[in-house]
Each structure stands twice: as structure tokens, then as C-alpha cells.
């Protein structure tokens, strides 16, 4: 069926298909991806929260859908989820604002 939108939620189901056009790289990526999210020094729950924050920072609708669901699966509360989004937003806005120092430096250098 024709779909005129760049993002279709149903495409997330087909993510695994990227392997069909480049089997070696696709397989390596999914092996790596799976390994990253296993319990390790961080719990799967902690990793899920980090992934949710990053999903928002990289503004990936597929990732937001996937990691909201994953967070529910790990028993995350809505408060924990929203705070993680704020952590991402704070780093992102901090990254913008810290460049203000560069602006101030340049301003001072150019000014008599």
C-alpha cells in the first residue's frame, strides 16, 4: 500500500531485513547490538534507560517506540522514563550552551 510518510511505524518490524542486502555487515551489527544490551556491568534495565535517553537525543522515532516498550518490559516507571529524557535534553542543551564560552572568547578577542 502506498505510504507517503518518511517514517512508518511498521517499518520497525522490518529492521532485520537490512541484513538481506549486506549479510556480513548486517549480521555483525545485530550480533553486536544484541551483546551490548545483555546484562553486564550495567543491568539490562539501566541500559534500557540509557537507550531511551539517547533515542530522544538522536530523535529516532523507531528507537523511541522500541525503548518505551523495552522500558515497560523492564518495569520502568513513567517518572524514571521522563527523567531519563531530561538527562538527554540537559546534555543536548548543555552542549549548545557550552559553545557560549567560545562566543564569549571570540567576542572578547575581537573587541577593544
Amino acid at each position, binding site marked *: 500500500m502506498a505510504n507517503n510518510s518518511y517514517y512508518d511505524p511498521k517499518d520497525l*518490524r522490518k529492521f532485520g531485513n537490512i541484513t538481506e542486502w549486506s549479510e556480513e555487515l548486517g549480521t555483525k551489527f545485530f550480533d553486536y547490538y544484541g551483546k551490548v544490551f545483555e546484562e553486564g556491568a550495567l543491568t*539490562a*534495565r539501566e541500559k534500557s534507560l540509557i537507550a531511551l535517553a539517547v533515542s530522544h537525543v538522536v530523535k529516532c522515532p523507531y528507537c523511541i517506540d522500541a525503548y518505551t516498550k523495552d522500558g*515497560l*518490559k523492564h*518495569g520502568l*516507571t513513567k517518572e524514571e522514563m521522563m527523567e531519563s529524557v531530561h538527562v538527554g535534553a540537559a546534555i543536548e542543551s548543555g552542549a549548545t550552551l557550552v559553545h557560549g564560552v567560545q562566543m564569549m572568547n571570540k567576542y572578547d578577542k575581537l573587541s577593544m
Partner: protein
Amino acid sequence: MLAKSLKTQNKELANAKKQLEILSNGIFSNKELPTFARKIMETGQFPLRPKKLEVLQINLGYMCNQVCAHCHVDAGPDRKEIMSQETMKQCLEVIKKTNASTLDFTGGAPEMNPNFKWFVDEASKAGIKDFIVRSNLTIIRANKKYYDLPEFYKSHNVHIMSSMPHWTRGKTDKQRGDGVFDKSIKALQELNKVGYGMPDSDLKLDLVYNPSGAFLPGDQDSMERNFKKSLLEDFGIHFHKLFTITNLPVSRFLDYLIASDNYEDYMYSLVDAYNPLAVENVMCTNTISVSWDGWLYDCDFNQMLKLKVASKITHISEYNEELINNRNIIISQHCYGCTAGAGSSCQGTVA
């Protein structure tokens, strides 16, 4: 929150045939997803056959003091179907000669059956030592006549398995109704008081976790750690194990999936998470489910879908274990719920 059962509301999905139609049409009839039969054929596991019978799971009725949003039984205070003493007597005849060692009571709220205690007493006399009661916890606090249940359970060393969807009030009440969390906490404290769930106690108290929405349960061990830590720190509650159970697309949960436009995604999640190892130990391979009116089923879900065992013997009154165990288990697409990830059964994960 639902106030009434789908049956009382005359909803389309109160009808088992309609549910089975939905589970066979759409993404399964257009071959977007493989049917469960096709999937288990790939791994040479079709037809699914019973192994040694270990558990008789008896549904004492669909009456319940709660109306949970995900309930596959469509139970509630408005459901009047409960097991009669006559059917219980037929069950007792079977209990005397069965090879099954565990008697697993479910509902509804099994305790609401007026002959519940009598039945447990008689089954105990008939030699059953391993009892499980699937208790919703709040029943213990629902009415004075139930206040002595913890002591009654203790006298028969009944293993209690109780539902608890989350360690926070908000998520629990959303699934199970306002006030359920506080009442459940109180009931757990009462059970701890008589010794249930305490470390090293023989009085077994396990919790059952169902996701409160269209997602699969997380890892059983890590969920257990989170539940234990929170319930102990916040309320001083002890319990033994936590079992994660996947919600199957049956009855109210199916109704919810469709109404919230989550059905297809949920079925994709189940099929993607298919695990052939879980198929080996699905509960229908060691359990017979008996309905309130004495009919026999492969599991409680098939009971709700009115799919009786594929055997000459279909009623408890004509029970013959050898004949019944020589059958093929009836499957449909809801079975994917028991084979996703680490699997799911009334005893939690299976793989």
C-alpha cells in the same frame, strides 16, 4: 477500568468463536506471520503431545471480586458460573486415582466458591499434598468471612501464588482496579505474619507478574530482584519467588489489544520472540485443565476459548487418564504467548 465483564456487556469478544476467528484471520491468513502450527512444524514439534501428567488445574468458577483489565477469564463479580459440589465430588473421584501430584486451584477467585474449603479438606483426605491456590490477595481482605484464609492455607500447607503487576501503586491499580495495591500489600503482610513467604519458611508464597499493557515481561530474575527490594524496603514484605507470565491474546486482553490498536504489533512481538525450547515445556504438556462445569481442556486459555481436549473423554465424569493422555494438544495463535522468549506458564518461565 472495567466495571463489568465482557459477557455482561454483551461484547463481541465474549464469544470464543469470534476470538478464534480473529486469531486466525488478518496477519495469519494473509501469511504475513506463520500460524503456530506452521511454526512448530519447522522444528518438528507438531503435533504437540502431552508428557507425564503432573498437574490437575481446577477452575472453581469465573466469579471474582476484581475485574482486571487483562483477565483472560473475563472474571468478575457478575460472573455466576461456579463449580457445584456435585462436580467437585466427580473431581475427588479422579483425584483418588490420578497420577497427577499437584492440585492447582484457579478462577475467578477460587476462594469465593462456597465449597472451596470443603473441597480442599476432602482432596487432602484423598491424599493430595501439593496444593496451589492462585489467589488474587485482595479476597483475603474483601470480607470478614475470608479473614481466616491465611490460617486455613497454613493448615493444609497450601502453596499460594498471587498476582502482583508492579511494586508501585499506580501501575497495580491501573491494571487491577483502584485500591487493589493497598489491599494486596495488607494481605501480603497478613500472610507473612502466619509465616508465608518468610525466608526458609516451608509455607510457599510466590508472586506472579503480568505486564500491565501490550508488552512482554522482562527477565524473570531481574524482575524478582526489583520486586523483592522494593516490597521489603517500602513495606517490610517477604515472598519466595516471582514468576513472570506473558499475557495471552484471549478475552479481555485481546479486546484491549484490538481497541488500543496494539494487536498486530503484539502478535509480531510474540512471533519474533518464539523460542522452540519453550515449546518443549509448555504447561499443556503436563497439565489438564478442568472447568467449573467439569469439561476437560489442555489449558485454562483453551478453556476460555471453549476448545475441549481432542479425546473421546471430554468430561471429568468419564475421566480415563490413559485415554486422555493419548491425545494431540489443540493449538491456535494464542499459543505463541506461552513460547515467547523464556516461555510462559502458570509456573512462570519454562526455558
